[in-house]
């Protein structure tokens, strides 16, 4: 059994992405006890799946490393991975939470030597790379994964492959007898930081995502550009592995649309502007990017980033929401629409189309097992009715990394105030 030490002075942080890690660290560094619960086998969430951040174009591994070092140095945080909150009872200052832990089939002895991965033959979808490739069923989710321990997929447990993984392990780390368990713990306050997921692109039928191989999403494009991704950092299109030198970015794919996501997802304009850099870096002047947009919303202080991209002669901007994507005989996706500047029709073929998908909360307000107020998109709203539950990061709004961290720090402060009150009452 997994044991968790938690009292009513503990803060529970749900979600171990950049927001959850930040909230947990900020609270723990003021001396609070924190339990950090993460659904995936590793921390870092969607941020670690990015190739680079805007605006400084630095690598997320850098920021993650700092956070991991803070985490490892702090004895007040207990991390539960492959864990999901299934029930919350009680009230502000005295919550009782049940957490379901999925078996990892690998214990703390693991040194990430990789022998089990070599022994196993079964391959599964590579979730870390948005299923763009396959990985062995005994795997390390990413090179930066924390905890740095392998995971054995439940599909090979009880098969010869599972036994092979166990036999290959020199450290007695593979435990195929692990069972799913439910632990209950107490907490005074909860920070809900379950983050976001890209909007389901197959719902935007006229863009043909899922039907046309060379129509991909912005999160998948991040993986293509990443040296740790399925193509080793080469921007190759999925249909034939040809270098995608002529890339179209379609903004507001799902966002600002009453039929899909009602809100502006805020980050996608900057994300596409950033991704034009990837094309430029990979192919130089041979790399051409086209951004189809309604209007560019370079949020906050990033107007100069937009102006710099605009000044690049290899990037063109077309003010139009693409109405339809078709495919020509060479499986090039063709963008069809009408350019608002001049109202002329176009049908332009590209090597690759990247849909700048919007953000929706990965756990909608109504799915949270507690009374939490949320807006029509499912984002948590700040409301006194939420009592001791505070939304953080992309669970509260469509945010970029920078703003998510700010939001998480604010949520940590609110949670600290609650447990301080509990501490005073108990003293």
């Amino acid at each position, binding site marked *: 059994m997994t044991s968790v030490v938690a009292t009513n002075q503990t803060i529970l942080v749900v979600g171990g992405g950049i927001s959850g890690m930040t909230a947990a660290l900020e609270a723990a560094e003021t001396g609070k006890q924190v339990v950090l619960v993460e659904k995936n086998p590793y921390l870092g969430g969607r941020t670690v799946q990015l190739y680079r951040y805007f605006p400084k174009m630095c690598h997320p591994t850098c920021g993650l490393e700092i956070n991991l070092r803070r985490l490892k140095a702090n004895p007040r945080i207990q991390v539960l991975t492959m864990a999901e909150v299934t029930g919350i009872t009680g009230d502000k200052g005295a919550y009782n939470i049940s957490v379901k832990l999925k078996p990892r089939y690998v214990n703390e002895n693991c040194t990430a030597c990789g022998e089990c991965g070599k022994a196993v033959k079964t391959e599964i979808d590579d979730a870390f790379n948005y299923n763009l490739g396959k990985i062995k069923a005994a795997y390390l989710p990413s090179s930066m994964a924390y905890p740095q321990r392998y995971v054995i997929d439940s599909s090979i447990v009880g098969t010869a492959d599972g036994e092979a993984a166990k036999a290959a392990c020199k450290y007695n780390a593979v435990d195929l007898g692990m069972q799913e368990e439910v632990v209950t713990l107490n907490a005074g306050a909860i920070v809900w930081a379950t983050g976001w997921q890209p909007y389901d692109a197959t719902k935007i039928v006229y863009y043909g995502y899922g039907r046309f191989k060379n129509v991909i999403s912005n999160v998948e494009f991040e993986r293509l550009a990443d040296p740790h991704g399925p193509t080793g950092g080469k921007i190759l299109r999925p249909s034939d592995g040809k270098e995608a030198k002529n890339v179209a970015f379609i903004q507001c794919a799902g966002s600002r649309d*009453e039929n*899909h996501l009602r809100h502006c997802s805020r980050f996608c304009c900057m994300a596409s502007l950033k991704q034009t850099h990837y094309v430029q870096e990979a192919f130089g002047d041979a790399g051409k990017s086209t951004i189809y947009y309604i209007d560019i919303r370079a949020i906050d202080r990033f107007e100069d980033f937009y102006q710099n991209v605009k000044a690049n002669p290899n990037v063109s901007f077309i003010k139009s929401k693409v109405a*339809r994507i078709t495919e020509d005989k060479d499986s090039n996706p063709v963008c069809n629409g009408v350019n608002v500047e001049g109202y002329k*029709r176009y049908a332009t073929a590209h090597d690759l189309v990247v849909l700048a998908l919007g953000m929706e909360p990965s756990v909608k307000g109504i799915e949270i097992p507690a009374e939490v107020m949320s807006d029509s998109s499912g984002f948590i709203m700040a409301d006194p009715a939420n009592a001791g539950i505070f939304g953080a990061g992309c669970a509260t709004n469509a945010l970029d990394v920078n703003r998510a961290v700010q939001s998480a720090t604010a949520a940590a402060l609110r949670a600290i105030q609650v447990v301080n009150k509990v501490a005073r009452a108990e003293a």
Partner: protein
Amino acid sequence: MSDMNTQMAERYKNNFLKEIEEQAEMGEWVKMCMQCGLCSGSCPTNFHSGWDHPPQEIFMLIRAGKREEVLNAQGMYMCTSCYNCYVRCPRKVPVTHVMHGIAEYAYRIGRAPKTQPTMHLSKTFWTNATKNGRVNEVQLTQSLYFKDGISAGIKKAMEMQSVALGLVKAGRLNLLEAVGIAHKCKDVKGIHAMLAKAKELEAKRKEAKA
């Protein structure tokens, strides 16, 4: 009729947007357009030569107060009511209905072109269908074929001969309809009364606006 045109132009002087909002059906949606172009791109008639101004350009022209350009435009008559734009519009603007609203308004104030084919179809269809509560298919196709004169009509009819014969053989087309012996709905009087009432209500509504 064209008096009404001058009257309206005089009344709304420099505010064509207001004129459309108040006078054209669904006109109040024009200002909701965010100029994304999804409607125009989705329009199946946008390859047609008559398609001078796509919907989102018409919306913009209205907002820019270009009264003459809009009322002389052909775009709104080109709509085939496929509803592609309507279902896709990210702002839920009922584009199809707005286009019909503008077309109807242009017709009402006497600005619709006399020979516009879609308008001709709408009028012919309406007169035909409301007479018996059912469409008289033979008379309808006849009136459409012979729209551009007798020789053009005969030529068109010859082209479609095999289709017509096929329909007759399958029992889908009654040639007696040509001489007015046509199927009717059960309660023709009721339909006429209903349409008369609808017309009365619409007239009342338009009077209130005028």
